[in-house]
């Protein structure tokens, strides 16, 4: 992965050299903008005295120290590929979220994949009927790990206004859900919020035991 050499660029502008000067202002290393090493970050727990200073000095020199799990989590949340799973009304707002006005691409989640094999987040947008539920589960099973589910809208979350024989009362009866979005249908901003919340969840739970 080239962690020692090029890792200083993580989170920064990959075209700029590490430690490059932005504009005419004071010299600010680009690496400072990385979510992995923010200015004023808490001290590394259990580290020897002076470890924080050493890390900062290394950062100024273009070397970033982090844990592999965090880098992997960063890679995961920075480019979520949603599975194109539009069912009903909410799918229209999901399409709206990927368009110019709302622009889901700003959060790195605009690459809607038609194949579950290529996607890692399933946005269940709409009501799930009894006939569709096995299909939904099969598509979820076909997605590679790690995978997440966003339940978009009232129908997917709890059945919404359709409390009848035809509609599954919440998609969490079929697949595990990470983020629920209220609304009927939710505005595209609601979906953006869910994507950001999911990214925060992923960042907060970096994978462990990668070399085990």
């Amino acid at each position: 992965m080239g962690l020692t050499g090029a890792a200083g660029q993580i989170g920064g502008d990959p075209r700029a050299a590490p430690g490059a000067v932005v504009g005419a202002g004071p010299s600010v290393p680009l690496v400072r903008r990385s979510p992995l090493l923010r200015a004023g970050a808490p001290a590394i727990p259990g580290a020897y005295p002076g470890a924080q200073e050493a890390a900062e000095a290394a950062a100024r020199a273009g070397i970033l120290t982090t844990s592999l799990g965090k880098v992997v989590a960063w890679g995961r949340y920075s480019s979520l590929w949603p599975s194109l799973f539009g069912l009903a009304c909410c799918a229209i707002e999901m399409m709206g979220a990927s368009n110019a006005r709302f622009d889901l691409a700003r959060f790195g989640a605009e690459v809607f994949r038609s194949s579950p094999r290529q996607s890692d987040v399933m946005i269940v947008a709409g009501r799930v009927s009894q006939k569709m539920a096995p299909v939904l589960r099969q598509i979820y099973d076909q997605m590679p790990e790690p995978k997440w589910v966003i339940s978009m809208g009232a129908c997917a979350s709890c059945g919404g206004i359709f409390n009848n024989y035809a509609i599954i009362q919440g998609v969490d009866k079929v697949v595990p859900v990470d983020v629920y979005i209220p609304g009927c249908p939710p505005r595209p901003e609601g979906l953006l919020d869910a994507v950001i919340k999911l990214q925060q969840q992923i960042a907060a739970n970096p994978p462990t035991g990668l070399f085990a």
Partner: protein
Amino acid sequence: MSAIWPPEPPGTGMPTGAVPKQEGIPVIHPGGRGEFLEKIEPAEELMEINMGPQHPSTHGVLRLVLSLDGERIRACVPDIGYLHTGFEKSFESHTYQQCIPLTDRMDYLAPPMNNLGFALAAERLLGIEIPPRGQHIRVIVAELSRIASHLIWLGTHAMDLGATSVFMYCWQERDRILDILEWISGVRMMTSFIRVGGLMADVPQEFEPMVRDFLRDFPLKVDEYEGLLTSNPIWRERTIGLGVIDAASALAYGCSGATLRGSGVPYDVRRAAPYSGYEQFAFDVPVGVNGDVYDRYLCRVREMRESCRIVEQAIDGLPGGPVNSSDRRVVPPPRDEIDTSMESLILHFKLYTEGFRPPPGACYAAIESPRGELGFLMVSDGGNRPYRCKVRAPSFSNLSALSQMVEGALVADAVAIVGSIDIVLGDVDR
């Protein structure tokens, strides 16, 4: 197989396994490509593949069972019901007012249209009339939602055939229409703005300038879309002569809307059986000649321009006065009256707890939705809920013609044909 009862007559039902070899393949491309494909020998066995229910180009959760002879489709059986929501049954357990939000979610590309159809049927049962201002605003909202629906159709149809940028163009204008709907109702999509007896409320002052702004820009935007597609050689190559259906077959299948008009039948409910005062407005009903994907495309694009004309006339001649019927059985008393009159308070309370009770009877009311004739057959037994409400969904009938349209076409062309009949699965399955 002997266990199936009643026994299926030969040649019906889902094709299973090998289908006997047929003589020749019909030429469906009058242009150049058909001649090449005609030379391909029909295969001994057909391969069955599923298109959907999870497929980006089936416009929802539609499953098409295709029997393929190489790349050619020899038979297509649509399998529907993946979005069956039980609307018609749910209507029977909701009061008439509670049904309005349910109707929103049937044809979810043009929700106000469903409100309008349901409200017209209920009003016909009740025998009430809507004041002219209410009717004009209904027409404006309906035509705006027709444009919004056609914009989604155009964007997704073009995207299915690889023209991704059209999608981005269309969505910009659609968002402007949603802004107008949000301004008058508070919701972007599921407005429930058209109610039995009138409207949710009168429109705010800003409505008129917003609509006029939109009308000023929109014809130029349609020019832009047409500039991207109408004379585009790739677009023409992929749509002309494809998915042809003749007028007689289209009528026999019960097609309506642009799917029927593309074949040259000038049937438009707004013209044939005007409702909500459509007879006052001058507009043309665009019809096609060849009944192919391209003609249906041209019809819908022209329809957007005609809708603009209708909205322009409606907003120019927007009368004053109330928007709701004065019938107190259906429409709640005004807010200030509730403060001073005990009877009004009781009436308001009764209306929202019990609802209203149309006299026993049955009626049918149809409107021209973006997809065709959307009809509501409503039966009342004198109670506060519909005894039965059958929806005549245009997408369902249009979809039934798909099998004939795609027979002999290539798999990639099936995508174009499905896009051209503009189905919404919420409307098909209900």
